[in-house]
């Protein structure tokens, strides 16, 4: 486990999923207020980039742009088929303006 800086808070617009590479791992980053969420960017179901999907504020989830399963940002669990596996969730630390992810 290494802690990697992925930029500053201002790099991540509110509610807009952003793809970031951290130490070789593709992450989907979403800012909600001053909290940053990081999940694996690869949909566990098929070949899709979750950062191209929509952030669903009511469900605190990212919706896969291809088949519509929405992954909870805290648990990683999908809410409906076709995905059945959870996506990996990464621990994020916001240190001042700096955003650090454990990958």
């Amino acid at each position, binding site marked *: 486990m290494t802690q990697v800086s992925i930029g500053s808070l201002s790099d991540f617009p509110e509610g807009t999923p952003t793809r970031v590479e951290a130490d070789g791992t593709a992450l989907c980053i979403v800012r909600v207020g001053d909290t940053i969420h990081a999940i694996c960017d*690869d949909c566990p179901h*098929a*070949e899709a980039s979750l950062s191209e*999907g*929509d952030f*669903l504020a009511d469900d605190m989830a990212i*919706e*896969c*742009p*291809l*088949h*519509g399963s*929405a992954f909870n940002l805290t648990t990683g669990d999908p809410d*409906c*088929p*076709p995905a*059945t596996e959870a996506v990996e969730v990464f621990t994020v630390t916001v240190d001042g303006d700096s955003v650090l992810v454990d990958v």
Partner: protein
Amino acid sequence: MTIALIAGSGMAGRAAALTLRRVGWTGEIVLVGDDSEYPYDRPPLSKSVVIGTADMNKVIKPAPEVYEQEAIDLRRGVTVTGADATAKTAELSDGSTVAWDALVLATGCAPRQLPIPGLDLPGVYRVTRLDEALEIQAVLATGPKHLAIIGGGFIGMEVAAAAVAAGHTATVLEAAPEPMSRPLGLEVAERVLQWATDRGVVVRAGVGVEQVSGDDIATGVRLVGGEEIDADLVIVAVGQTPRLELAQQLGCEEVVGGIKVDAGMRTSVADVYAVGDIAAFPSTWADEDRIRVEHAAVAIGHGQVAAEQIATGEGRYDDLPSFWSDQGDITLNVVGVTRPDDEIVWRGDQALPACTAFYLREGTMRAAFSVSDMKTLRGVRKLFAAGVSPTREQLADPAVDLAALAAAG
């Protein structure tokens, strides 16, 4: 020691094995599959695998070492050749006998056999197993090819669309006059077909295939009437039939061409479960008493529920049925249960590559088809969950927020 024997290592069988461990079941798990490969996802075979763009780590999953870590006794290239419901034993093709406490039948389907000559020629392929899809991949990798695809269902059309997008040419030969009209309805199927033909897929509907032509290697197909379609390779995708022999030997009750199960995936025989393609299961979402569905998401859900039943005696399968199909650069999503004669209501005047259609039966929404409109699809799921069916006018109006209608009840 309690033993769960899972006959079939496809998506349903694999899900059953992994779920047993996920819910903390500590008995012995024997997962038997006739495929010599480690268990894999089947949907990519006709899409990214044939054209060589698939990440194989995402196709063959979980990673092979997981079976050892999870103490799942995976036996590849092995079939269950016989089973006895009273003695609770099964004979395997590797010569062993397994005394089981729970038996999960996940035997899937066998490809339908076409009664035409020439199918055993080199250059004739199917897309039902990974090794077959990889053979096609190897041929397509050598340069632009012309594919003759027998069968214009989702699989045949997916292969055609993927191949054309990758720079090959493809002719799809379909016996029915309207390809894909049974699962999608005529109006929706026509749009999808038009999309494919606009991108270069040649579709010949309502044609019979007389034989695969060629002496030592397939050179094409001959249609009824004598017309020859030349091809570098011939792909047969004419559907499949459920493998019920093992279930029949055990005395499981059959219905609608499958093995009758309850919502817990239990067959009529004690401690025997049927999952995936072979299961005829009850569904809130269908009119019929039991339905049989050959789609990945349903197979996985069945496997999970059977595992929960074995481990805890609880768990019901009643998911809203759904499936998807990649046709080249578009992904079709269908939720609910369609019928060919359902009334179609389009949402606005949208067209592919982004549009939604609703399937209505006696005025009630029963399913939806959508390409690239996840918001509407999500609204549809919420409507189903809430038991709300909007009016035709509401469905047809893109300005109407379906999720809000669901929330309002």
